[in-house]
């Protein structure tokens, strides 16, 4: 088995359902060394996918292998794999060092103490390692979970919403860490519902919506898909009706609706639209008060991606 196979996670037509609810629907992907972000709104199926990759859930249909073997009912896979679950529950009565050292012992590492201190150092938690986890902030608990997942130096790291609760500085430190690990040839898979987190981490993005793989590629490819979609803006001005009449004749504008909150403008070319609207207002002596994208929520972006 070569190094790439050893680090690879492969899903072939994987589905998972709970009763009548389909959580993951016919997903096929190969995840190799580097960073892969699973991006999608809450409830999209990201956790179910990661849980299946970690072997804590059997696919209802399809095949899922980690380093060439199914992870379900194969705890041996954790020699290669580290998991940072989303749930915040850890053994709160242990100190951070106790917790990570215990994990090192469960992995039967030769020097559990040294491995634990090394992993704690990587996540910058040495100062707090002798405190009970119950006294940690959410971000600190998140980092000690990452330390425990890293303690055996895994080739593959699965992280479910790893940046939850971390402050921006901690987030950057973690992102740098994951990028370094990816450059060393490791496979890092993380889930997020926040576009900016995924944007910051270079690598492949798998967009999951409604249990399906909606799009995949690098961030720029995903971004292009998003920017070329129709945008809806809410525009408020001193003369909404006049501005609406002027806008409707522009090629970049595909629809205008006068609403009590202002003008709702649909555009297929938001770059041109945002440049033109200023000129139109100036020419017509209209005071422009607000131009606000009304559909920038991630969910609307995702639903667009699914529809295309």
């Amino acid at each position, binding site marked *: 088995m070569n190094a790439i196979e050893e680090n690879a996670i492969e899903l072939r037509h994987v589905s998972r359902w709970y009763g009548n609810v389909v*959580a993951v629907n016919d997903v096929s992907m190969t995840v190799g060394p580097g960073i892969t972000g699973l991006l999608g709104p809450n409830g999209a199926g990201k956790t179910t996918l990661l849980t299946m990759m970690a072997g804590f859930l059997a696919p209802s249909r399809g095949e899922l292998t980690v380093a060439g073997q199914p992870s379900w009912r194969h705890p041996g896979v954790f020699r290669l794999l580290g998991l940072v679950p989303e749930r915040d529950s850890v053994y709160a009565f242990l100190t951070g060092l106790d917790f990570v050292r215990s994990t090192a012992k469960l992995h039967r590492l030769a020097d559990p103490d040294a491995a634990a201190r090394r992993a704690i150092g990587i996540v910058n938690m040495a100062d707090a390692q002798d405190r009970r986890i119950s006294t940690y902030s959410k971000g600190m608990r998140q980092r000690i979970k990452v330390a425990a997942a890293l303690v055996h130096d895994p080739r593959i790291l699965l992280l479910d919403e790893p940046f939850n609760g971390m402050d921006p500085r901690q987030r950057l430190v973690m992102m740098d860490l994951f990028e370094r690990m990816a450059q060393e040839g490791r496979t890092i898979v993380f889930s997020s519902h926040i576009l900016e987190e995924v944007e910051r981490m270079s690598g492949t993005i798998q967009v999951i919506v409604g249990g399906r793989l909606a799009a995949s590629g690098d961030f720029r490819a995903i971004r292009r898909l998003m920017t070329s979609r129709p945008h809806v803006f809410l525009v408020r001005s001193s003369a909404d009706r006049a501005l609406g009449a002027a806008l409707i004749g522009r090629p970049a504008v595909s629809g205008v609706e006068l609403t009590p909150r202002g003008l709702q403008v649909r555009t297929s070319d938001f770059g041109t639209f945002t440049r033109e609207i200023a000129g139109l207002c100036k020419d017509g002596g209209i005071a422009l008060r607000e131009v606000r994208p009304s559909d920038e929520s991630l969910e609307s972006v995702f639903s667009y991606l699914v529809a295309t």
Partner: protein
Amino acid sequence: MSVLLNPVVLRITLRAALGRKRALVFALVPTVLLGITVLLKLVAHSPVWPAEFLGVFGFSVVLPLTSLIIGTSVLGAEIDDGSIVHLLATPVSRLGVVISKFAAAVILTILFGAIPEFLAGAIAKGFGDRLTIGLLAGALLASVAYNALFVMLSLLTTRAIAVGLLYLLVWEGLLGNLIGGVRVLSIGQYSVGVANSIAHTSALNSHLTARTAIIMAVAVTLATLAVAVRRLSSFALKGESV
């Protein structure tokens, strides 16, 4: 041995149990047992009260209830709050996890159930008395067999305490008294049987021979642990955000 018993799992489980307020709950029932025993020692005149009280209250209430609370929580509490993932996201064998959790439950039940039963016997009759030794032997057997059953239940259902109570009240308490055959499948009867084989007193109301009791207890323990291991090997995380 180390394949079966994982010292890290055992240590974390004991720390979790003894560090929580739950330890106070564990201590409640044996405290009542010892309190009543002291009281009876002072006021009771019947010569059979130690066997009657410690046989009935000890083997029908103290040991089963203590085992129920402990046995369902050693794995059940971690499954409920999700912390079990940190244990299972390692290559440690599922057999080792079950045996270590079971061992922790047995140790705790001996501490909070069997030793108080022995001390109560000693208060009533003295340390060297046949009844005291019999009560200890029966209590040790109960600590093992009940916990195997309750650890298994905690892996089979999220309502392990309710199901365990049903078993104790309906199967052992009600049907065990009405139908003779049920006694062969009653952990309470195994412990009374073993206790009586040493104490030899009709007041213990035993229906099984020591041989039958021990063979059945071993069979029940092995069978329930085997089911627990099988169940944990297929442990599935319930996705919160599927």
